């Protein structure tokens, strides 16, 4: 069994928040993760990765030392830090079939979150619904996120340029009325 990358600490239908399994080890921004539930596996994209104090009332202070020095002389402070990341739900598997819309129930709290396999990346990427899900979500810098997801998914394809083109067509369909926004996203896809 693969090691989990995080655990859900806050959950709703459209998105959930996880604590990363280890400090500074959240999955990449724009990568795909999954949560296995009883009847289905929920799939989402990672965004908004934060590392903050575990205790909201105590703020980390600047020490003026490098991380190496800090680890040697003040190892305890790293015990007080946590890495969190948010996941935007884009679809789910039921009976091994992927559907590109929201699951009937949110992910259960304290469920483990895993990275998606290469095969899952390929399967999920065939459904372009995730683009509209991202663009209509309320998360921060969603245009950036859409481009990042396309970039990360296209890496799993034999012909990334071709996949980017297909995704671009979906973007065009959604954003024809806002051409400048379309172009801004497309410019980020190819980098």
């Amino acid at each position: 069994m693969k090691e989990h990358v995080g655990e859900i600490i806050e959950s709703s239908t459209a998105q959930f928040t996880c604590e990363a399994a280890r400090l500074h080890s959240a999955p990449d921004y724009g990568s795909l993760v999954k949560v296995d539930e009883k009847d289905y596996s929920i799939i989402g994209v990672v965004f908004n990765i934060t590392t903050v104090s575990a205790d909201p009332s105590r703020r980390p202070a600047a020490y003026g030392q490098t991380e190496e020095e800090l680890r040697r002389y003040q190892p305890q402070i790293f015990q007080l830090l946590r890495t969190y990341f948010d996941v935007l739900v884009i679809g789910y598997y039921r009976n091994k079939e992927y559907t590109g819309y929201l699951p009937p129930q949110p992910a259960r709290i304290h469920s483990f979150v895993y990275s998606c396999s290469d095969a899952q990346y390929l399967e999920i990427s065939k459904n372009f619904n995730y683009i509209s899900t991202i663009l209509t979500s309320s998360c921060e810098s969603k245009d950036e996120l859409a481009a990042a997801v396309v970039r990360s998914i296209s890496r799993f394809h034999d012909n990334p340029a071709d996949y980017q083109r297909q995704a671009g067509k979906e973007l065009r369909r959604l954003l024809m009325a806002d051409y400048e926004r379309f172009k801004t996203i497309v410019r980020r896809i190819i980098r």
Partner: protein
Amino acid sequence: MRGKVVRGSLSAGVEVKLDPQYTVEDVKVGNFAVIEGKKYRYFSLVADVKIESTNPAVLVDTFEEEEDELAREIIVGDSIFGSISLNPMLMTDKQLTGEVRAVRTIPPHGSPARTATEEDVAHVFGAPDNKVYFSLGTPLEMETPVCVNLPRLVERCTGIFGKAGTGKTFLTRLVLAGITKSQSAVNLIFDAHNEYGWEAAKEEDRGDGIRKETLVKGLKQLFPSKVVIFTLDPESSRRRGAKYDHEIHLSYSQIAPEDILLLQSQLNLNSTATETMHLLSGKMGAEHWFKLLVEMDAGELKDYAEENGFHLGALQALQRKLKRIYDLSFMREKVPFDAVEKIMQYLNEGRHVVIEFGSTQLLGYMLVTNILTKRIHGEYVKRMEKYQATRENKPPHLVITIEEAHRFLSPELSRDTIFATIAREMRKYNVTLLLVDQRTSGIDSEVMSQIGTKISCKLDDETDVNALLTGVQDAKNLRNILYSLDSKQQALIMGHAVPMPVVIKTRNYDIQFYREIGETDYTENDKEFKKMVDDMYGDDIEI
């Protein structure tokens, strides 16, 4: 080309969005397209080609920056796409078994459209058989012959138009050869520039920039037994080495005041001159007035004016002007035979008559054409009426070809000339016109509207184009097509003899054409000749 119908109406035509892999450059105005509807197949003409977009902001983006390459790939073809306007013209059932009818509905949204195949064209225009269907050329970029229906062509008046040097003469020669070959009518050709009877020069540019003059065969050479040539200028015929069968002369007694009227502008006659001529013809007799007036000397003229109350100056002016006609080389006191009778005789036998004018000036051409046509028209009316009474000896259908048609059919003159009468009503009497002209705007609009089949080479002048398209359905789109014609070997055919308007590349008038059309079977000749050589020298000689 492939695309899908995205919008349309029966009156304005349908819009087709090109599939992304095709660009506007794959489609040309005037080409054929077929739309596959759910129940019918539609034959259409490409009327317009446009670049369109779902969002106007996209159109102004030129994608010049390097990082916009992906955006360009995504946008061009889908968001910026080629759109073509098609005019559905004809429809038939999907199996192509039923008849081809004019469109009464349009294909549903999303119907696939494509470039017409050779098979489609053949289905619409018929296969050439040189009896009913006669090939005039091929559609642009296709090799399938486009045929006109000759019996329908001769049934009504036909016009062949186009500015000078665009190939009118060749088209006319093709049509005349077709009519002659099929025997769908007999031709009477007033050949003002000696181009149809015997051979004529053809200018050719074989792409190397050097103009070559070659000689092409005339009707008489193609159909020696069916064509008779009359000439008004035997001198010129002899100089050109052209063969002719008869000379034509006109006698002074054949000239009536109405004939002179037609020459009003050439002779610079005023309106009183007309009245004077009528008076003279009344007083001196219809057969004698012309000769008597022109041959009077100054004294006689003065006496005559005084005696009969004419204004001397007017009479002198008239005499001076009529002298020009009197001096024409083919005018005679007495003629050896009546030209009209002879022509009628040939026509009745189903022979085609070409009247050559040699170097005769326009004045003579107009005079002769008018006088002969008037008489032949009279004869035809008589014979048709007789036929209607007795139901026997029906005169053959006659097609009269006139060049410089606007001279006879201008709005000012068309009331008086025989040609307007023929254009308007002679269908009943089995006579129709084949007008050849370069100035459609000079032809009376009433006559223009009676023309059944219009064949037009390139026309530039807007008034000419307007005149040509008067009363034509869907004139707006045809106008685009007309302007887009090449100035050589291309023509737009529309009207009675074709099921739908079509742009053609005129077929070549060459050896192959002679072989197919001509009376003489050249292949047969070659075989005979080879056999003869074989007999004489044995089989091993190659020729």
